[in-house]
Structures are given as C-alpha cells and as structure tokens.
C-alpha cells in the first residue's frame, strides 16, 4: 500500500464516514443549540451589566469590573473544568452541557460588557445632558439616544468576539458533551480510524466558515468612519 493510499484509507475512509455520519450530525445540532444559547444569554447579560454600570453606583461598579476582569483573565477551559469537577463538591451537579453553557456565557457576558461599556462611554457627555434637559428620563435617554449609537459602534468587535467564543463549544468535549468534537472523538476511538475526525472538522467548516465570512462582511459594512 502506498503512502497516499494509506493516507486516504485513514482520513477519507468512506465506509467509516458513512457509519459515523449520523453521530456527527447529531453532534452538529448539539453544537448549534449550545452556541445559540450562549450567544443569547451572553450578549443579554453583557448588555444588562453595561447598563447597570452606567447608573454609576460605585460599589456595584467595582463588583462588575472585578467579575468582568475575572472571566477575561481565566481560560474558558479552566472555568469549564472548575464548574464541572469542582461544583459537585459544593452540592451542585451540572451536566457537561450546562457547565459548558454557563462557562462560555459568563465569558461572553464579560467580553461583551466591556465592549458595550466602551460604546456607551464613547457617546459624548453633551448628548446625555442635552437629552436629560429636554425632559427625557435617564432610561429614556439611554434607550433612545445613547444605546442606538453605542450599539452600532460595537457591532464589529462584538461580532468577532462572539464568533471566537462560540467556537469554544468544542471545549465541551472535555466534559463529555457529545457535540461535534465529542462525537468525532468517540468515533475515532471506536473505529480506530481518524475519518470521523475529518468529518468533524468538515462539520465545523460548514458551520463556522459562513460565520467567519459574515464577520468579515460586518467589519467592512460597519467600519469606523474616520
């Protein structure tokens, strides 16, 4: 058998691929579900924290800044492992799916809070004052004047960060979530052939290549005007 045949036999084995395709497709939907749940919860809580921070309550802001710094400094895999293997000692049992979801949500919350907050502070103070003096309440000013401008400004960095963090769903395989990578790895060890891994890589390409291209488009579409 030549090297090339052996290579194809290993990585593009049609028979093995056909056998494990259903598992990978199942994993694909787990990844999609996990990613969507992370994006919704992460961005919503990040925006909420940024809005709370704009109220300017000192002790609360310190708490927010510390939390955000904490989840920006810790590697996501460390958080996942800590929640999954550590929390049972505190009487809280999270499934692998829940631990991965919670960890990546906290990470996305922290990164997006930072970006939303930067967007809010980038709106000049004069606009706040002008809006308040026309009789708008604090919340109305935030909702009608500040946030529309701030959010538009933050679209490119938020998009890129969200893509990077949702790719972290692959880390779930470490705590036994059968998302794409988890399914591919169990296929690899059952079949003793890496074709399921090739299939898994393809599944990620199918899922994230359009997302990366979308990110590229967003970057030019909402580019900073100098």
């Amino acid at each position, binding site marked *: 058998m030549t*090297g090339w045949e*052996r*290579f194809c036999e*290993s*990585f593009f084995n049609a028979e093995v691929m056909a056998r494990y395709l259903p598992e990978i497709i199942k994993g694909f939907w787990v990844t999609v579900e996990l990613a969507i749940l992370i994006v919704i919860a992460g961005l919503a809580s990040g925006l909420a924290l940024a809005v709370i921070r704009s109220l300017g309550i000192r002790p609360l802001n310190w708490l927010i800044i510390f939390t955000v*710094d*904490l989840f*920006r*400094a*810790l*590697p*996501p*895999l*460390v*958080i996942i*492992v*800590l929640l999954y*293997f*550590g929390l049972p*000692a*505190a009487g809280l049992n999270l499934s692998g799916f829940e631990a991965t979801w919670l960890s990546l949500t906290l990470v996305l919350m922290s990164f997006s809070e*930072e*970006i939303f907050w*930067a*967007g809010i*502070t*980038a709106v*000049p103070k004069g606009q706040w004052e002008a809006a308040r003096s026309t009789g708008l309440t604090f919340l109305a000013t935030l909702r009608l004047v500040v946030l529309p401008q701030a959010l538009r*400004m933050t679209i490119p960095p938020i998009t890129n960060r969200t893509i*990077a963090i949702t*790719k*972290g*769903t*692959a*880390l779930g*395989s*470490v705590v036994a979530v059968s998302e*794409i*990578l988890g399914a*591919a*790895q169990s296929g*690899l060890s059952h079949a003793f*052939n*890496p074709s399921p*891994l*090739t299939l*898994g*890589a393809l599944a*990620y*390409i199918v899922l*994230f*290549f359009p*997302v*990366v*291209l979308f990110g*590229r488009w967003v970057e030019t579409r909402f580019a*900073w005007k*100098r």
Partner: protein
Amino acid sequence: MDDLLLAFFNLDILRQAWPILLNGLIQTILLSLLVVPLGVLMGITLALLSTVRNRWARYPLIAFTDFFRAIPPLVLLIFLYAGLPFAGWEIGAWGAVAIGFMLNTGAYYGEILRAGIESIPAGQLEAARSTGLTRLQTLRHIVLPQAIRNTLPDLTSNTLEVVKLTSIASVVALPELLFQARQAQSVTFNATPIMAAAIAYFILLWPMVRLLSRLENRQLAGRR
C-alpha cells in the same frame, strides 16, 4: 461553610499538590514563550504575503486564513495529535501544540497585522519608494513599524487569548498548569488544585487584562 472551605481551599491538599502545580505553571509559561513568537512570526509572514497584489496569491491566502479561523483550535489540536499518527506521523504533544497554535493563532495575528498594514496611507509607500527604497525595505522600515504600533491593543488582546489558550494543551496530556491541576484533583478527589490553578492564571493574566481594558477604551473613544 467548613465543607466548602475543605472542598475548594484545603491547605493540606494544597501543600501536597504545590510542587506539581508549580511545575505546571512553569510549563505554561515556557509553552507561551514558544507559541506566542511562533504565532507572531506566522502572522507577519501571512500579513506580508497579503500585500502581494496578485489574485492568485490573494484568494488562496484569504481561504487559508479563514479556514484556520473557522476551525476551533481544540479540533485542530486533536486532529494533529490523535489523527496524524494514523498516517505515520508521530509528532507528539509538543509538536501538535506548536503546529496547531502556529496555524490558528498565526491566522489571527495575520489578520490584525494585515489591517494595520492596510491602514498606512498609500502616499507613504510611494514617497518611500521614490526615495529609492526597495519594496522590502519600505515594508521593513516604513510600513511594519507603524502597522505594529497602530494595532498594539489588538496584538496584546490576541496574545492574552493565546496564553489562555495554552490550557487546551492539557487535553493532549502536555503537563502544563491545567493538566497538573486535574491530575492532582483526580488523585485527591478535591477541587483545591483546580481552584489554585485558576487563581494562578488570574494572578498571571490580570495585569494584562487591566492594561487592555485601558487601551481598548482609549481606542474606541479616539475613533469617534
């Protein structure tokens, strides 16, 4: 409360696990010192290649970059570590991490530097060329220094991500901080080692996060 303290901040267990955790921390730092320069070098190479105005060079390069930005780094790492041996290539944990990180983080560094290079006005290039500098000299002395300076916040942010990412090397049994902590945890059935590792990561990386926070705020405020 005492139970919680014993489960997460158990001093006896910390005393036992301390030597291997320290060893893990050193490996994490060494690993970072290996993969960050590799990624930056790869990034500079990709960014310089992207200045070639030839569509046959341009589109394959974009495809290459986007491919490695679309694949989660852990998937790439597992592929290199567990997949390649089937083709007869045993590259080991360090080899897989070095190559995987070079491809993944190189793509990100490359994108950042490319944006930096493109932000330099064309007039500067023309002026440099008309003074007699060659293309490469112009890139080296005029374009790259400014591109790197202009993208410093993004480069720092990416470097923070790369250092954090070294924790995935634990999955391929490279004995860095998280791997050692998990070993200690599975022997002692206690979460203290993982807690200690988390605190070590935080102490190591917090200054960088603070610095970044400032750089980013300034950047966004300046861009209005």
